[in-house]
């Protein structure tokens, strides 16, 4: 079983003791099933004590490249594997990179009940900053931004997205397939909203003109993204 965690700048894929090929196939099916979550991202792999050959590393790198994911580090407890990794020019520790900020995002629930649920153990990414144009926050759990998300910025979360501020730009919640994910913001005026596989474009000019600024929530209803005012609840 592979586990995916979030780093401040990218993702960490952790492998266990199962045969390498089995796990690589699992990674491949995850990459294929959630292409929009992984695409353009950076990945580090923790292969624990698995011993990998040159060919195995080359193949997994090619697999990631094929899915437009860049591999930058491989963590290994095996001495000779570490040598091979270095020879490829990958990092062998997360070093200056941040520590994992997330535990695995729990089982992806298929239930369609955003209300009246308390979820425990699903971690997320908390950003206390303005997210600027061209910046991407990507996390398998939830993403919380305290600050504005500027036009041209992207948030991609496996879980929910909460913005305590203005949400411009692109927001994709439930990017690993969770249909119950929600997106909420004090001012919801994104250029593009996605929840799981559903997409909703919106022109802030036509939509927001004449509307009072108020907190809003977007969620999936019958495969369509519906936006409701916070007060209507």
């Amino acid at each position, binding site marked *: 079983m592979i586990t995916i965690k979030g780093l401040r700048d990218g993702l960490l894929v952790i492998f266990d003791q199962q045969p390498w090929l089995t796990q690589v196939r699992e990674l491949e099916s995850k990459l294929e099933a959630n292409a929009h979550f992984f695409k353009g991202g950076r990945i580090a792999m923790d292969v624990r004590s698995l011993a990998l050959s040159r060919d195995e590393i080359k193949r997994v790198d090619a697999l990631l490249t094929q899915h437009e994911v860049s591999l930058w580090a491989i963590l290994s407890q095996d001495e000779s594997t570490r040598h091979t990794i270095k020879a490829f020019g990958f990092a062998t520790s997360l070093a200056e990179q941040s520590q994992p900020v997330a535990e695995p995002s729990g089982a992806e629930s298929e239930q369609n009940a955003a209300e009246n649920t308390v979820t425990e153990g699903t971690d997320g990414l908390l950003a206390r900053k*303005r997210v*600027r*144009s*061209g*910046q991407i926050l990507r996390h398998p759990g939830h993403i919380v931004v305290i600050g*504005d998300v*500027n*036009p*041209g910025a992207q948030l991609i979360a496996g879980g929910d997205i909460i913005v305590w501020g203005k949400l411009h730009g692109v927001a994709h919640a439930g990017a690993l397939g969770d249909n119950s994910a929600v997106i909420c913001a004090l001012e919801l*005026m994104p250029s593009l909203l996605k929840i799981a596989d559903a997409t909703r474009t919106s022109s*802030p*000019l036509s939509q*927001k*003109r*004449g*509307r*009072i*600024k108020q907190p809003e929530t977007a969620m999936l209803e019958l495969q369509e993204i519906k936006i409701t005012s916070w007060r209507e609840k």
Partner: protein
Amino acid sequence: MQSVVITVTSGKGGVGKTTCSANVGCALALLQKKVIVMDGDIGLRNLDIVMGLENRIVYDAVDVIEGRCRLRQALIRDKRAPELYLLPTAQTRDKSAINPQQMVQLCDELRKDFDFILIDSPAGIEQGFHTCLAPANRVLIVTNPEVSSVRDADRVIGLVESQEKGPAHLVINRLVMSRVKRQEMLSVDDIIEVLSTEVIGIVPEDENILMSTNRGTPVALNGRSPAALAFHDIARRLTGEDVPLNTQQPTSFLQRLFGRG
């Protein structure tokens, strides 16, 4: 005082980086500072033209880096101000001719002799920009009061912050008050709301700029035109003087567009 490397950049092209570099450089020099303005746009040099020093170029920054001349030989003295120099760049090379470490070394050499080192960065977020950003102590982001230039400025500010070169300061260039009042142009407040970055100067649209650029006489050297005054204010703020911003702002364009019921 300790010398300061200031990189002037923007993201979008044509917003007035070179005009700003030349004029702020002149204004600082007229404040009795030792100033060098450096063209960081390798292959597309034009700071020398705006400064009117094109005909005096013998050597350039790439010659210095590659050891064909000493640094002193490449510096062009501008006699119109007490201590103002230009370090031109090569016209026949590309951005890879100078790497970030070489730029840092070059600036460290210049720090010995100058109070202010202004680098006129190329537009964009590619290698040339990163090279010019590497030695910076302060970064001036030039933007025009229009949406696309503000968007690109936002992108650049994000990169400057991630390289820990910030805080970036904003120069809002070519503002036309009457058009802001008629709500045809973004106001200073609209821009600050998106970029949340400290504004170090507001330069009004000024028809004298075009002529001064063509003639190679920066307005800050002798003019009392509106833009010249704004560039002098920026220079004084850079020396640490507290000069209030002229921010008489009518109601915001975006507020009117999005906000009202």
